[in-house]
């Protein structure tokens, strides 16, 4: 196996850079994954379900995109655990694929779970919107954009169009961020090896 000229870390076939010290590797050969698509499905469904529920519960979802990144990373970790002996390690492409599948399923779960929560909390949201409206009217120095953000976040209205738009946006964002989570998990867990 090739090693890095600078730090001595092992380099897998296809390495473009040493992932330990960042030194460029000459004559790069592109790596490829031989994992079947089926091995990704169960981890993505499990991780996407957990991520989708956690990311849609008010107050629990206060960690911004952390649940989505974590969901993608968790799915990649589960896929790594399922690898048979001698099958090598996950490539960054494998981590990305596990993340994308998780993100897509997580977006569907989040949208589905958010709907009943939105209906159940409609009255409370309307009350809060009224209270914030009063408070904002007494603070003329707050920019209009900030007012609109607060009001839209507290809006109890649910329409078919808003659900559809929400699903499309969630699919894009969850797919992207869960993919990044999967890639970073592979990067962090690798030991002295490049892909």
């Amino acid at each position, binding site marked *: 196996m090739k090693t890095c000229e600078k730090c001595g870390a092992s380099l897998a076939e296809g390495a473009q850079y040493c992932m330990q010290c960042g030194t460029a590797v000459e004559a790069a050969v592109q790596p490829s994954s031989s994992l079947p698509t089926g091995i990704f499905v169960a981890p993505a469904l499990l991780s996407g379900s957990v991520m989708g529920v956690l990311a849609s519960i008010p107050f629990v979802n206060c960690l911004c995109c952390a649940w989505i990144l974590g969901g993608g990373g968790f799915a990649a970790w589960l896929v790594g655990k399922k690898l048979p002996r001698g099958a090598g390690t996950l490539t960054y492409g494998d981590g990305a694929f596990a993340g994308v599948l998780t993100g897509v399923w997580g977006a569907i779960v989040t949208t589905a779970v958010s709907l009943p929560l939105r209906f159940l909390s409609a009255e409370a949201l309307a009350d809060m919107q009224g209270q914030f409206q009063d408070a904002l009217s007494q603070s003329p120095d707050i920019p209009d954009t900030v007012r609109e*953000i607060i009001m839209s976040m507290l809006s109890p209205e649910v329409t078919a169009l808003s659900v559809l738009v929400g699903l499309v946006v969630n699919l894009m964002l969850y797919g992207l961020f869960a*993919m990044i989570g999967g890639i970073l998990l592979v990067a962090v867990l690798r030991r002295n090896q490049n892909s």
Partner: protein
Amino acid sequence: MVGAGLWFIAIVAAPLFHQQWIYTFFSGICHQNPDRSWFLAGEPLAVCVRCTSIYAGFLIAMISRVPPSARFLKTAVVLTLTEFLVAQLGFDFEVSRSLTGLLLGLATAGFVDQGVRELVRERLARVLAGAASQ
């Protein structure tokens, strides 16, 4: 690189052109608390200081082709987590949030770039090849 550039332009364009839909788009991945955001033309950017710094670092790394390094990534993750935990104890500073975010963005870009390339080559190419053979 184009995607990272468009992403960052959208964050800056939201307050400049008063685009509410951009704020709504980013609301799913950022708390958008005005007290923890930078302002432009009197209005907050579409994401908070930490997120803006991460995306700025990511864009800089993509443009300058910062090579991926696991040590750099692990250091950036540990620094960001430490800063987050220390902030919960009351030692919360805008400069520390922005610096750790910038480092995390710089450390992440190379891996994401490689991961996306591999994803397209390994999976998309396999799907296209399968479709072509049918």
